[in-house]
């Protein structure tokens, strides 16, 4: 086999691997359609937002166009974390008066089995930078400058549920 053929075979394998990854990911997206609940329809990948255990909205990729991107450099590794502020996400889907100061906001990840519980006062304080940042997989992670969320093992990676509990 000539070197040219070997290089071509390698490129074909590389393209096939890329196609397999993207194909499987597209299949996962098709095979996991979220059922429509009440008046809210969720698409695969959307993050459901519950208020007092009632599904009230879904955070979708279409919402990103309406939100401002924010960023901060994390103290642990000095990497730039870029995403969308959680209060902006919530206020996109509900009125501000629904979110009382002592409301609890719980962001959780079913795959990682992790969650973070914050009050609306903490979430709504822009200095805390409570935000949903994009992961390498295209999923979201909850990160913040807050002491309870500023280290990697405290982050909620692959977040797939947002819950709001009234006091």
């Amino acid at each position, binding site marked *: 086999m000539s*070197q040219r053929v*070997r*290089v071509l*075979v*390698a*490129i074909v394998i*590389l393209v096939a*691997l*890329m196609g397999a*990854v*993207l194909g*499987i*990911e597209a299949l*996962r*997206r098709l095979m*996991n359609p979220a059922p429509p609940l009440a008046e809210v329809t969720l698409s*695969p*990948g*959307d*993050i459901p937002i519950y208020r007092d255990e009632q599904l009230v909205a879904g*955070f*979708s*990729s279409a919402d*990103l166009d309406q939100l401002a991107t924010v960023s901060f450099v994390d103290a642990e590794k*000095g990497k*730039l974390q*870029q995403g969308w502020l959680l209060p902006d996400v919530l206020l996109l889907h509900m009125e501000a008066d629904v979110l009382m100061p002592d409301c609890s906001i719980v962001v959780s*990840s*079913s*795959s*990682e089995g992790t969650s973070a519980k914050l009050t609306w006062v903490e979430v709504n304080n822009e200095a805390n930078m409570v935000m949903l940042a*994009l*992961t*390498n*997989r*295209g*999923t*979201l992670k909850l990160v913040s400058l807050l002491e309870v969320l500023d280290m*990697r093992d405290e982050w909620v*990676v*692959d977040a*797939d549920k947002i819950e709001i509990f009234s006091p």
Partner: protein
Amino acid sequence: MKERYFSTFQLILMALFAALIVVAKITLRLPIQMSGHSGVFWMAIIIVAAGVVPKPGAASVVGLTSGVIAAFLGMGNFGAINTLLSYTMVGVGADLALLLLRKPENLVVAALAGTFGHMSKFLVKWALGVLAGAPVGLVALGLAWTLVGYIIFGALGGLLGGLTLAALRRAGFFAYLAEKR
């Protein structure tokens, strides 16, 4: 007495390359906000290691050793197993590519081997995420962009490694190594 596959001198060289990967991962920071950018130096070291120890399996040993060191140092965001597997697969991927393509000093071969090695790391991280039940991404193209980042930086790293090997040959490093063996 049966001759060992790797000489003691080669094992020492591979251990040094493995340590260099971990040190580079900890200390080098590129101001590029794109996934997989660390592949530039990562794959360069792997390709140089594969060229300096020109035996199938050398890159895998370097990957495995760096994975063990990184796992013990608590590196990576997804636990020790994820770290060990992803570091190891960088070497295994590059080794498999070099089994097919051979000479890592050829710049096209080096770039392709770098791409394969770095993509193997991406595949491990992605597969472990899928197996762990990670949700489908909010941004549909997020994964595709990450994949493109890994391929570009893997190829650049491989290219850098190939250029380094060529420079080492010009400087007479391989003649020096032959004497040491």
